[in-house]
């Protein structure tokens, strides 16, 4: 682990590239790549890494929801993952989808999860080994989780509304233009079908990128505390809801608040703006 991560509330949730390169073949470790670029894994990945696609592997193919617990067990089993396996997630876009996949694993109660600090971009920029060889691991019998931890780490629209009405912390991690309602899509991205622009009343704007350095690594614990604790007034134990457009950027902030700052009761509203901005009569603030 690097020296800065030791100041984090849960330093064990981060690994740096030096550590990972020395532990690529450790028993009990599974490296998991999850990207926005659908074919990026196919172009080369960290040796031994498996690919988990946020859409086809983690989401229900019909309903806007996550896979059922038995499908999660199948996903883990075919990737050689057991409940005792430490899954180290990494990916493109400064780990957006890696954090999303990690959060989804937590939804199903998988506890041994970590993020590769700096993600795929830094690993590649550092000239570390990449391969196109797709690994094969012996299948496991991952037990079907008996519940999903929606209540603990996930917020639904009615809960986000209650959060807003109660004046409890809501963090909007989208770009400032999206927050203000000037645009209804991310800069550089296509419109994803949102009818209204703005933010949930009472939400504070803290773009996800605020938490990262230029090389996609996370800022130090002190810097993060200044942003979220001093700047936003977040406190340990207070219910906090984070959201973006479809829940991936807010997974990044959820990871920062939960694992790096150690806040409890942080939930990711994964319906996010593509639900709220289309919802009839949902209150919206602009500016």
């Amino acid at each position, binding site marked *: 682990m690097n020296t800065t991560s030791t100041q984090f509330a849960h330093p064990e949730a981060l690994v740096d590239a030096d550590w990972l390169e020395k532990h690529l073949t450790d028993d009990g470790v599974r490296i998991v790549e999850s990207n*926005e*670029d*659908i*074919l*990026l894994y*196919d*172009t080369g990945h960290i040796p031994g890494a498996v690919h988990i696609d946020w*859409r*086809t592997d983690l989401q229900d193919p019909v309903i806007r929801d996550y896979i059922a617990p038995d499908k999660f067990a199948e996903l883990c089993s075919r990737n050689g993952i057991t409940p005792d396996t430490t899954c180290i997630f990494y990916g493109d876009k400064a780990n957006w989808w890696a954090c999303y996949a990690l959060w989804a694993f937590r939804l199903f109660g998988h506890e041994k999860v970590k993020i590769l600090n700096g993600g795929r971009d830094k690993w590649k920029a550092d000239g570390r080994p990449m391969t196109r060889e797709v690994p094969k691991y012996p299948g496991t019998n991952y037990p079907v989780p008996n519940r999903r931890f929606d209540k603990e780490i996930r917020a639904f629209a009615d809960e986000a509304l209650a959060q807003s009405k109660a004046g409890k912390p809501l963090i909007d991690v989208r770009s400032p233009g999206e927050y203000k309602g000037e645009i209804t*899509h991310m*800069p*550089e*991205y*296509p419109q*994803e*079908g949102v009818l209204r622009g703005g933010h949930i009343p009472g939400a504070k704007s803290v773009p996800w990128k605020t938490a990262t350095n230029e090389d996609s690594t996370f800022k130090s614990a002190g810097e993060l505390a200044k942003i979220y604790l001093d700047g936003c007034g977040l406190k340990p134990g207070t219910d906090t809801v984070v959201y973006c457009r479809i829940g991936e950027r807010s997974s990044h902030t959820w990871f920062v608040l939960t694992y790096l700052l150690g806040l409890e009761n942080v939930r990711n509203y994964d319906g996010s703006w593509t639900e709220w901005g289309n919802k009839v009569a949902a209150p919206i603030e602009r500016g």
Partner: protein
Amino acid sequence: MYPPKLEAIISLFESLPEVERRETLVSYADNAKKQEPRPGEVFILEDVRKDEECADTVGVYLQVDDQGKAHFRMTLGPEVQTLTRAMTAILCKGLDRRTPQEVLELPSDFVTRIVGAELVRVRSQTIYYVLTRIKGICKVYLDRQRMAEVA
């Protein structure tokens, strides 16, 4: 219906099982760099810009030879997604030596036949972006031709 080179590429992809389709797309993406302008090449039109639909800068370069046939070159920024890179190599090869008018009239329904339904999702709509840019530069060329004719 499609230019013969493009038709051959479409047929190839449609014959491939999903795993090989992905491998072939990656192979085309690897070759996208070969579509960059080469030293000494001169172009009649150049269009280098970054649009909101794409994650990085994309440049399109058009040359039309004395037989009226179009030749395309393209440059892609490092953040451009793999599928977009693949479509760049496919289209530069598949549309080479067609007239700008033929390119402009090309329907876009072949894109999903190449990429396959599994890889088409909202955030990968940029698979259509390269075709849009190529058609765009052909339209500018044809508009200028018409203006020159009436001037």
